[in-house]
């Protein structure tokens, strides 16, 4: 059984098992989870639980509902998601040892759709689950063989997707962290830049916005500055001469750059610095 842990300022207040199909959250006393705080709307949100899957829906609350730091209207809850309503936090714990997990990792594992097993699984799913509960289809099957399980999981995933597409209202699982991780990392990292110190372009400044910036003369000597989540690196690309940082040759492996390092590539000196 999945459950929610209600806490405020790190203090655990309550543990709520998700037994009902609809678990309502709000300030008014008729809610299943009553949170008596003015930041919480009278009817704030609802969690719809179908078999092993829970979906969170904001009921048009004044201050909104956040999941893992981003505001949501509808959300397919994943294990360890943190729902925030004002100062209160609700941690969602999926059932442990459930036969078919739908964690992000499961969805990323490459699997094959087999037309033969798919068909029977799809028919079963259709027979057992009405359209509105399609996302839960996988939970309704016994789980015998891994092959069949794969196909069924595939069917369920497909139904989740197609339900979302056709209805437009179904709780489509939010995209996984894939897209947001790099952006978050980039935002947190200070922007680096290069100022040219010698040669014809002396004084020019170049912001290192792209993940890769090449410097030097193709055919003679080229180095690349890579922007990574934890900082900037310089790497030798081509040419007999290797670039130097503060007068020291960097060799052929990547070299981490520090604020105000002086780089020399193809006879041109430049200074690396971090913009705040």
């Amino acid at each position, binding site marked *: 059984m999945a459950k929610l842990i209600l806490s405020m300022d790190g203090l655990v207040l309550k543990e709520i098992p998700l037994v009902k199909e609809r678990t309502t959250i709000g300030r008014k006393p008729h809610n299943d989870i009553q949170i008596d705080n003015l930041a919480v709307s009278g009817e704030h949100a609802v969690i719809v639980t179908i078999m092993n899957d829970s979906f969170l829906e904001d009921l048009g609350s004044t201050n909104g509902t956040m999941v893992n730091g981003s505001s949501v209207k509808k959300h397919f809850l994943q294990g360890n998601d943190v729902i925030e309503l004002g100062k209160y936090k609700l941690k969602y714990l999926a059932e442990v040892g459930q036969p078919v997990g739908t964690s992000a990792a499961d969805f*990323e594992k490459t*699997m094959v*759709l087999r037309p033969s097993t798919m068909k029977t699984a799809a028919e079963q799913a259709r027979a057992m689950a009405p359209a509105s509960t399609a996302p839960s289809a996988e939970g309704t099957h016994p789980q015998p063989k891994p092959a069949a399980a*794969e196909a069924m999981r595939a069917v369920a995933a497909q139904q989740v997707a197609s339900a979302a597409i056709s209805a437009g209202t179904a709780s489509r*699982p939010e995209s*996984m962290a*894939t897209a947001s991780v790099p952006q978050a990392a980039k935002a947190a990292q200070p922007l680096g830049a290069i100022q040219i110190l010698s040669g014809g372009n002396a004084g020019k400044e170049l912001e290192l916005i792209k993940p890769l910036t090449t410097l030097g003369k193709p055919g003679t000597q080229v180095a690349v500055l890579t922007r990574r989540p934890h900082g900037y690196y310089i790497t030798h*690309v081509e040419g007999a001469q290797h670039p130097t940082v503060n007068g020291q040759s960097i060799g052929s492996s990547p070299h981490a750059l520090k604020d105000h390092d002086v780089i020399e590539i193809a006879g041109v000196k430049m200074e690396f610095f971090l913009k705040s």
Partner: protein
Amino acid sequence: MDLSHVLEIASSTDPGMVRSHNEDAVATDAAHGIAVLADGMGGYNAGEVAAGMATTVITAELARALRDVQPYEIDPKTDRPTAERLLREQVLSANASIYQAAQSQPQYAGMGTTLVTCLFYDNRVMVAHLGDSRLYRLRGEQFEQLTRDHSLLQEQIDSGLLTAEQAKTAQHKNLVTRALGIDLGIEPEIHEHACKPGDIYLLCSDGLCDMVSDEDIGMALQALGANLNLAAQQLVQMANDNGGRDNVSVILVRVLREYPAARGVMAKFLAWLK
């Protein structure tokens, strides 16, 4: 014809930041112009076994078959270059081997692998693929995907259910509709592309293209094309920096110069002398 002085090849494979196993496998043979990449699936270490079987079997068998026939010769039965028949035969035979292993040994039940295989010959490349491992090409400034995934996602895009934009954040990226070793009746998709000197071909598993945008991959190849090994490492690193949620594998092949097949008696004789 020995292509080792015509093709520069670099590869890199990495388990990524999340997985403990590397179920990807790569194999290359510059002399015969072969590059094979596979992304295995199946419990325990079965995915590794399937991918490893696919890459080693196909590389070795293709190289052996090339000793007896010329890939550019037109096959009278199909009216297509022999290379196409060779690729199909080898893919099907690897499929049968993996399928048999999966059937006969319970610990390998259900194993399979995606595949992308390139055979370079006569200023051309013949590519066979199954599943969502891809082939890209960088030609000048233009970076494009040459293969189309056999995946649920791609089918949904094709049928207009999803836009390319929605597909980027879709949850079921991982479901492939064709794979090696799952069934005896598979059909690899095979296409031929003309090569030009300076082209860089990228074979990669979905661990790269799911984590790094095509734009960034193209940019990295353009920037680091001069140093293929570095470019391969950089691509893996970019995938890992972005989360590395899956195994990441890349093979890079650069065409250094033209490599027309030695046709005619005299040319063949000279080639034989070498």
